[in-house]
């Protein structure tokens, strides 16, 4: 599990962990809680080009649907098959095993800090 304090965030309730030119993207515990029991996750395939702000996936619970936005321009290098097979990982471990996609990027856009994100959900 990543250290939540060191992650980047978006207003769409996603977190981004940066390692070199690879960004790992997931949804925050707040988002997972709002969705409720996640039952289905639809993620882009590796190799897909994504543009910041575009909808690239869907996260369904028993009563609502959330969209996964690309927080960054780049190319998907991996999507989390474990979370596709067991969507409950999103609720159980949103910062860890519940991650969604890894994106190779060239430039990091302006993102929220943990403190800034906490202010949004307060």
């Amino acid at each position, binding site marked *: 599990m990543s250290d939540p304090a060191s992650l980047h965030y978006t207003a769409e309730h996603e977190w981004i962990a940066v390692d070199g030119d690879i960004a790992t993207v997931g949804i925050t515990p707040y988002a997972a809680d709002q969705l*409720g*029991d*996640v*039952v*289905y996750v639809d993620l882009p395939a590796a190799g897909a080009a994504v543009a910041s702000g575009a909808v690239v996936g869907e996260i*369904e*619970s*028993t*009563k*609502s*649907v959330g969209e996964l936005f690309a927080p960054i321009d780049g190319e998907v290098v991996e999507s989390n098959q474990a979370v596709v097979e*067991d*969507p*409950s990982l999103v609720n159980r471990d949103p910062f860890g095993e519940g991650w969604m996609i890894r994106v190779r990027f060239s430039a990091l856009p302006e993102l929220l800090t943990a403190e800034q994100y906490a202010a949004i959900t307060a």
Partner: protein
Amino acid sequence: MSARFVDRHIGTDQDMQRSMLAAVGYDSVGALMDAAVPSGIRQSTGAGSPLPPAATEREALAELRALADRNTVRRSMIGLGYYDTITPAVIQRNVLENPSWYTAYTPYQPEISQGRLEALINFQTMVADLTGMATANSSMLDESTAVVEAMLLARRASGSASNVFLVDADAFPQTKALLAHRAAAVGIELQDLPEDVEAAPAAFGAVLQYPGASGRIRDLAPAVAAVQAQGGIAVVAADLLAMTLLTPPGELGADVAVGTSQRFGVPMGFGGPHAGYLAVRAGLERQLPGRLVGVSQDADGHPAYRLSLQTREQHIRREKATSNICTAQVLLAIMASMYAVYHGPRGLRAIAHQVNRAAGLLADALGDRVVHGEFFDTVTVSVPGRADAVVAAGGDAGFLLRRVDEDTVALSVDETTTLDEVATVAGIVAGERLRLAPKPTLRSISPELARTSAYLTHPVFQAHHSETGMMRYLKHLADKDYALDRGMIPLGSCTMKLNAATEMQSVSWPEFAGLHPFAPESDATGMLELIEQLQGWLAEVTGYDAVSLQPNAGSQGELAGLLAIRAFHLARGDRDRTVCLIPSSAHGTNAASAVLAGLKVVVVACDELGNVDLDDLRAKIADHADALAALMITYPSTHGVYEHEVRAITDAVHAAGGQVYIDGANLNALLGYACFGDLGGDVSHLNLHKTFCIPHGGGGPGVGPVAAKAHLAPFLPGHPLAQRDTVAGREAPSDPEHGNIVSAAPFGSPSILPISWAYVRMMGEQGLREATGAAVLAANYIAARLREHFPVLYAGENGLVAHECILDLRPLRERTGVTVDDVAKRLIDYGFHAPTMSFPVAGTLMVEPTESEDLAELDRFVDAMIAIRAEADAVAEGRWPASDNPLVHAPHTARAAITGEWTHPYSREDAVYPVPGLLQAKYWPPVRRIDQAWGDRNLVCACPPVEAFA
């Protein structure tokens, strides 16, 4: 003894109403309505009733009898998806005519719906087995709309960039017309599928009729493969009875199978209602439109049924939903599934053999005149130059034969056709007396296409073949369910009022039930008159000029209304008017329907009172000015409030050149007091299954008439095969070739229209007005009595609600941790169906008592809610832990109450008999709270093995 039907329909008498008025703080219903309904929208009274004076129950039945007597039911051999069938009497009496089945609601509260959910999973299993597909949904509105849904599914699921959908030349004519009308709205181009399938153009999908409208059977595998080779989705419209003998679509490689289950014991009824079906191969489950029953487990780990994958549906996904369909045809799907349960696979096969044999004998007798050598039940016959004479001679002998063209007729046999009838018809067609051979000499189904795989192998299709067994199985299932025959179903926006026995009586009369939808006009004289009278009455009470009864659900009426608006703009050259404004509080169906009408949804904000935000509306109108097509609003609003500004809203839209669609879901708060037409509405759909007493049937049938002002009349639904155009004030539909068709049958679901006809006939204008007053009083009474226990979320200017009220449970949750789910499930322990949950506001309950409940039942509900509030307080005060109290563990089954050691801090009595009245009459839920997530993560949508229930 009172002879007034209105006093039977309305649950509260004058004494009850007086004490309720005291609680609300008014002297009379008139004074209450004066305060609740804004004066600016009130219709003038005393101008003389447009409706005939109320008839008694006896008089109404006599009039219906006279109308029925004017119909002529001849033996139909027309076919085209509608066949005579024998409804087993045990199913007619114990399902179709049994309020335990027909008064139930859609199974959104699965714990109290296990019986009909089991019946529906039997239906899904039946369809999936017979078609050879992986997963079937729990019914569509009819075959032709199912084909349209399959076309839309194909466009979503196909990887093809083409916008072309290919249509079999041998598809049913009503399906072709419907495809044309619907495809045009969403930019799909239809092309004929060529006979040489290798020459087919690139397409995202194709539909093939199996067997064809001509009766012809051909191997569809090459066509299926050719479509798929180009990345398209292959849809097969298959006859379920034929599938007992033919290789099913799934084994031919099809992606989707669609059709109707009408001939499984559901009368033709001049076109409906019947259950259509849609099934898909593995991998396309999430693309399915409509409701899908699946298996999950309850809190004790026992198997339990519930609706699966609801996030596909319009109430959650709105304009991105897989379809706008909500109400389907549950009651009819259950009848069809029970026909299969009763006959079993061998019985069905025997029926199919009998039909095929009769068709074979007919073909044999007619020899070389027969056009196709391979067929199941329909024989196309060449009669050069004599088709009209043959059809006329058939008619004289009591048979309806189908004229294909001047040289050709087609003859369909069904399970009711006798060999004597076959011989007679053969003689008429041949023009000479013919003898039938003892058995067919030709094979009409080639060995290559004969079915070899097993079907309906689940024990449920083997176990109930005796009438005693069937009667008890139906009783066993009905006993698991909560319907209006047990108590009130206070579902906001659903109007679960009385479905009176007199209203229901004529539904199964053969003069209404036995008509083929394409029977000649002279055979349907009484039915057509009933349709025209009902259309006229509905126009009068809503302030519109023209009505079409064709839409067979509210969603279809809504779509028809929006298609009319779109066509109106196009006819005036306004090609760019494509924006549809929809308030954020609207039913999800509004947005889903708008997309299917080719419109672009723009959401308008609501203010904190739940009303349309006028400033935002004006801003959105200004933004879209010349692109504005329509505004859709619901009146009274989905928040159950009479908006005072409605005229300002509709005027603003008209001033910008837009049309106003008023959703009729809440008409029960308005009848006799205000008209949609006077509020500025141009078009509306009504829900006959809400306001006009057609029972909900556990999730259908519904009827969703579309009503409009004169300028939209040309654009309302008609039908290319209609006996006559019954829509008032027009020469013909604006698109005469396709008739603005929205349903398979010209008048939708006519066999249930006598229900609404009888209701209006027995209530009269005064009775309808009294019902509205009683409904509004009941809602305000509940609001007044519960307000100190639960905040009532929205109210109009005088603190009054309309016909429903929203109880805000969010403060309770904050204080006690008790959720809206806990309260809803605890109501089951108290013997109630929960109100509407979390619509239109999450965390709330919306209560609509209707006019049909009496004061004792209203008080029983209020007392239950107050007692549940006290239980929640006990949790807040720490007397019960948050994780172990009667609310979080609700509902409690008998098994949970008696099995093992009782370790909870509350007593068994508190669990299952929380109020003494329950000792006299207790509804026992068959399962505990169902795990919704488990079922969606482990999708199973067919009958589970019997061992699962051990």
